[in-house]
Structures are given as C-alpha cells and as structure tokens.
C-alpha cells in the first residue's frame, strides 16, 4: 500500500510538469493558429536553448544546495572576451575555447570562495555577478563587438537536418548532463553533497573538489550559452544576459529541483525551461504585453512551487 502511494506521488511529480507543459501548449493552440506549427515550435526551442543550457549548470549547483547568481554576468563577460578574440582574427575554435576558459574560471573562483573561503553561495556568486559584469564592461569600454563571419554565425542560424544548431547543442548538453547526473561518480556525489554534506564528508568524498568542479561547470555552460547568443545576435554585448540567472533558477525549480538540495532531475529542468519558453512565445502570439508577461511568469513559478510543496505535504500526511 505504501509502495503504491509512493509510485503514485512520484508519477504526479514527474509528469506534473510535463502535463503542465502540454496543457500550456493546448491552451495556446486554441488561442492562436500560429502556435502549433513546426516553424513556431522550432522557434520556441531555439529561444529556450540559451536559458536551457544555463539551467543545466544551475541544476547541478542547486542540487548541491547552492545557488549561482553570476551566470548571466559570466555569460556576458565570456561572450565579449570570445568576441574580441574572433575580432582579433583567432580561429573560431580557439576563440570559443578562450570563452570557455573565462566562464570556467569565473565559476571556479565562485567554487573556491564557497569552499575554501567558507562563503555562502549566495554571497560569493552575488559578488561574482557584479565583478563579471563590471569586467565585461571594462574590457569593452561598454561597447558591443559585432560582425562575425558566417562560420561562427552558423552556430546559431545554421540547421542540420532542418533542426536549428542551438537546439542540437541544447539536446546534446541535456543528454550528457542526464548521463553525468545519473550514471557517474560526479552525479552521485552531487546529490550526496546536497542531501547531507556531513554524511558525504564521512563517506570519504572530497566535497570541496567536487563543489569547485560543479561551479566551474556552471560557468562553462554560461560561456557556451554566450556562444549561441553572440552568434544569434551577431554581436557580443557586455550588458547581455541580465536577469538570466532568475530564468535559470525558475526553470530549475519549476522542473522539480529542491532549493534545499539533494533532489532534482535534468529532464525536469528541460521541461521547466520549455515551460518558460512556451509562455513567452505564446503570450507574444496572443498579444499579451511584455509587462503582463512578467506577471504571468512570476505567477506560474509561484503556482508550480505551491502545488509541489503542498503535494509533498499531502504525501507525508498520508504516510503517517
């Protein structure tokens, strides 16, 4: 009987967000004939890709019971550094690797501050949010760097088998992340650190090392998102990615990752990111103003978590 209840709940939990996503799609299909078309759905996926990629890093971080507020700023900083490398004539792969190093470096600094500096993740990454933003502005003197050759732009505008490249990148990242989280040591340790740090330490896990790796990955994925964004806009801007951290946190949390740590799935985060993408797109299509869009998105975040926590409470109650 107990077992039955558990399965039932987990199914609601797992498929709840999927049901929500499907419901949203139905809703917008009824209200707009333009919603359910291949080209629009590709559009949604493409628009979601950037937040979705950042959210992967955020999911790892939040599962360790941390938070990363710096992802948007790190995106901008690594974006302009990479763009200036391209502008300086470096080959595309080299420029991208430089961008990745900047992103990973910022993330690793977050990790060091949190582990060896004993700072709460909120504070460390809040500081990095400002530092990376300022570094990007300083580096470019506040200007954007624009105009890249087609080879680079292909990363956002190209298609392979009619699928936009950013969508392919997103899918690849999600497959890898899902694999890492469920089938590798790093994944297991991520859950253990967030679930019970003390128990993780006493199980012989070098938690400082793994936290550094995880914050480094979050920075690296911000840099990857910067590649997509820069290629799409054909321009790297030091003010790019403002508020992206909030979208990434929202996608992660809507996807069922607990801010208390120890729980969450990559698949859930993908659905969370798509829900936000579909909402933006659908509300645009039916002509809702961007002001009201913000209100709707905020309400959806709160609604999803309200539902989740209350379902959980019901579950504990039925157990007792």
């Amino acid at each position, binding site marked *: 009987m*107990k*077992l039955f209840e*558990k399965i039932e709940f987990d199914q609601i939990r797992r498929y709840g967000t999927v049901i929500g996503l499907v419901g949203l799609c139905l809703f917008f299909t009824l209200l707009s004939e333009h919603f359910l078309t291949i080209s629009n759905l590709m559009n949604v996926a493409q628009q979601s890709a950037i937040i979705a990629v950042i959210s992967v890093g955020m999911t790892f971080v939040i599962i360790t019971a941390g938070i990363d507020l710096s992802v948007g700023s790190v995106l901008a900083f690594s974006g302009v550094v990479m763009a200036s490398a391209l502008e300086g004539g470096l080959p595309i792969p080299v420029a991208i690797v430089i961008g990745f190093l900047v992103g990973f470096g910022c993330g690793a600094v977050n990790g060091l501050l949190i582990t060896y500096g004993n700072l709460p993740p909120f504070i460390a990454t809040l500081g990095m949010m400002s530092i990376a933003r300022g570094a990007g502005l300083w580096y470019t003197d506040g200007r954007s760097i624009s105009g890249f050759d087609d080879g680079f732009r292909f990363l956002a505008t190209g298609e392979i088998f009619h699928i936009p490249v950013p969508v392919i990148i997103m899918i690849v990242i999600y497959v890898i992340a899902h694999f890492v989280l*469920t*089938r*590798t*040591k790093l994944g*297991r*340790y991520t*859950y*253990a650190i967030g*679930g*019970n740090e*003390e*128990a*993780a*330490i*006493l*199980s*012989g*896990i*070098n938690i400082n090392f793994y936290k550094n790796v995880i914050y480094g990955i979050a920075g690296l994925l911000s840099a990857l998102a910067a590649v997509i964004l820069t290629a799409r806009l054909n321009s790297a801007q030091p003010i790019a990615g403002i508020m992206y951290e909030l979208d990434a946190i929202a996608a992660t949390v809507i996807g069922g990752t607990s801010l208390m740590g*120890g*729980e969450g799935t990559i698949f859930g985060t993908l659905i969370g990111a798509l829900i936000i993408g579909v909402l933006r797109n659908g509300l645009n299509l039916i002509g809702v103003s961007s002001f009201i869009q913000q209100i709707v998105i905020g309400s959806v975040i709160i609604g999803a978590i309200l539902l989740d926590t209350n379902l959980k409470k019901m579950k504990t109650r039925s*157990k007792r």
Partner: protein
Amino acid sequence: MPTDDHILLMENITKRFPGVLALDDVKFDLKRGEVHVLLGENGAGKSTLMKILSGAYEKDDGTIWIDGEQREISSPRYAQELGIGIIYQEFNLNPFLSVAENIFLGREPTLAPGVINWKRLFAKAQEILDELNVNINSKEEVGDLGVAMQQMVEVAKALSLNARILIMDEPTAALSRHEIQQLFRIIRHLKKQGVAVIYISHRLEEIFEIGDRVTVLRDGKYIDTRPVKSISRDELVRLMVNRDLDEQIPKKKAKLGPVVLRVDNLCVDNRLHDIEFSLRKGEVLGIAGLMGAGRTQLARAIFGVDKISEGKIYVDGTEVSVSSPRDAINAGIGFVTEDRKSEGLVLNRSVKENISLPNIRKFLSMGVLDFEKENRTVDEYISKLDIRTPGRDQNVVYLSGGNQQKVVLSKWLCSHARIFIFDEPTRGIDVGAKKEIYQLMNELTAKGVAIIMISSEMPEILGMSDRILVMCNGRITGRLDGEEATQEKIMKYALGELNEAV
C-alpha cells in the same frame, strides 16, 4: 503531600516518549534555601524531569506542588510566573545587547508604550547585579563578558523574574576553578535569601562542596534521596549504576588475532590528550564515559575528520596518515556515527545510493556506473543484513531506525572495512533491532573484524566488550578487562575519580 518547608514537591512523575519510558514514577522535593543535587548517568532522566518542571515538556502523569499548592505547569511562561528559573548549559543571551537589555528582554521599563526608559533599565539591572555582589556593569555588551560572567547575567535574569526555584544544568562545565568558586559564592548568597537551587552536575567533588541533599535517578527511575553529609562517593556511584544486568546481550567471543590498530600518544588540540591503545583482530574494544568525555572526538580523529595535532596511528603495524575520511576508508576503517540522520545517511536518497556512496569506485567501469553490478551488490547486502525495505530504490528516510543502521553498516561492509568504529550503535533503536545489531557485531568479529564501540549504555559496554577504555575530559582514565569490569568501576573512572597512571 508537601510539608511547610517544601517549596516544591513532585510525585509520581511519568513521561513517555515514543518507544521509551523516560520517567517512571519519579519523585523529587525541594526545601527553601537548599541546594538539591540531581545526579544520574546520561539518559537517566534528569533533563526530562527539569523540562517538565520548567514547562518545556508536559508530563503524562504525576502531581506537582509549589508552595503547597497543586499546579499544572502548562508552559514555560507559567513556570516563570510560579518563580521557576532555569539556566541551561547553552545560555539564551543575545551577545550584541547590553547586560541590562538581556536581563529585562521583553520586560523593559517604558516611558510610553514602545519607548524604553533606558535610565531605569540600567539602574534596575545594576541593582540586581549589585545585590548578587558581582562586578558587572549593566551597560556592558554581553558578548564582551567571559563565560562565568555571562552565567551571572543568566542568574540575574532569573532573579529579576523573582525566581525562587533555580535550576542549574551543569553550570560549571565551562568554568575555571576560580570561576566555580565565584559561582558557589553566589549560590550560597542565594540560599541565604531563601532561593532553592536544583543543581545538576557529574562532578562529585562539587556535589560534596555545594550540595545539601542529592537525589539519584537511573534509567528514568527514582533511586534514592540522601543528605550529602551522610553519603560517601562510593555509595553515590553505586546508586547511579547499580542496575540488574538482566538484559541478554548475545556476545560471542571471537578468536583474537594480531593487533590491527594501534594509536600512539594521540592528541587533538585541547580536547584529547595522550590517547594510547591497541586493538586486535576480532576484538571489541568498548569506550565508556560520560557526555563530553571526548569519545566521539577520538572516533573523528581516527577517521580523519578532525585534525590530529600529535601522535601516530598504525594499521597492521604500518604508520598511516589519516588526514581525511578517504584516507581512513582506504586504510580499512569504517565509522558508524552516533547520529545516523545527520551524519550517516543521505536521507532523501535511496538505499542503493547510500550503500554505494563510499564505494562508487567499485562500480565504475570506464568512469560509468555499472548499474547491474551495483544493484547486485546492494541486493546482496539487503538480503544478508535483512534490511526491511520495499526495494533498493526506497529512500532511507522511510526505513525504521534499525534498518537505517543496517544501511550504514552495509556502506562499510561494502568498503571492506576491517576496523569498525561504532558510536552509540543502538541509540534510538528498538529492542529487537538492537539484538540484530549485536548479532551483526558478533558476525563481524568472527570474521576477524576489529570493533571500537563507543557507548553510554552500561549493559552494552559490559556485555559486548572484550576490553574497556574509560574516558574523562579527553583522557583515558581507566582500562578494564571485559571480565573484571563492573558498573561501579566504570563509573568511577568516568567521573575522573581514580586518575591513576594507566
């Protein structure tokens, strides 16, 4: 029924917690102007009794008279109104506020509603402090005071609430000898004014110095009340521990092999001093002592959690450096912590993930988890240890205490630990599961595993140990053979009584 000189009488006090009878028909009385010592081992029921008196717990049964009137102490607030003050080991003071603000927190004299009359506040507080004859300025910040002075502030706070019954829970635990004398002076002063003090302490010498009468509790039961003047130390110890050892501990002696672990002159900062012992294959080495004796610290030091400041650890005759739990695990040590929930397990993860956590390397092939191998191994331990769970994917939070403990054991069995450190292995586990844990220990030692067992439960220590170390204040104060050990001997060493060179 209370007599005239009784300020407090508690009778037939009973308190049940799920699975335990914490207090069983206990009585306690207190006369005006006396210091009445409450004595007992860890878990004897002292704190529970005091929490009932101070309104933190509700009793299940029994009667309380205060000043001859029957009272139901339903809340801490009501206890305060009745003149009961309690000073916990950890103070409830705000370090950033002044002494006066702390004393009158929530009861500040006001000029108008919401406006504090600072002048009166400081003056009133100073009055109480002067009355106590302590040299504290009421305007000082509490955080700037030493521990002893902070305690005086607590006393002053209790007095400002017109406390006539003052409960002091191990008040001298953090005090120096000089400060203790200062505290005793205050206590004598309070006595003269008719305040009655309930004094909880393990330190026998203090009991004889400051106490008038002593009541001993054991395993939640009332044992006896005696005037301090007419009781000897030996008698007190006997009252504390003299229980019938009728609990059946299914100890099977294993054949002892060579020494597997040797600890040499181990020190940890100011907390552990000159710890020396050795442990043989198949042996159970019990470590007894009272709370705060340093037993868990010793375990943490050996397991590489806390830094060792001096000393050496040898495993199988070779010196090993354990600077992290990983090192200890690699050396073949497993640590079954006292608090499963906060240290041993990741509660919201599955049985499988918990068992494989320290052992993941074993299940990796080319960096990828081999689920089949992992599942097979985990299932093996589930059936071998008879872990009652719907399956390996069940979250451990839903398992019972005994089954959770078995999951922790599986972690270390799977890591092929040859030296197990058990810290209070059966705490919070029901009787049936306890036996199973003992059987498992027998099986382990039969296979040549060596066990260090930290325990506060006398029957467990006496029943399971081949040898016993007793600790007090971070030192080993006694070494006993399993056969010659008695409750009295252990308790004497644990109280730091026979501090002979060992």
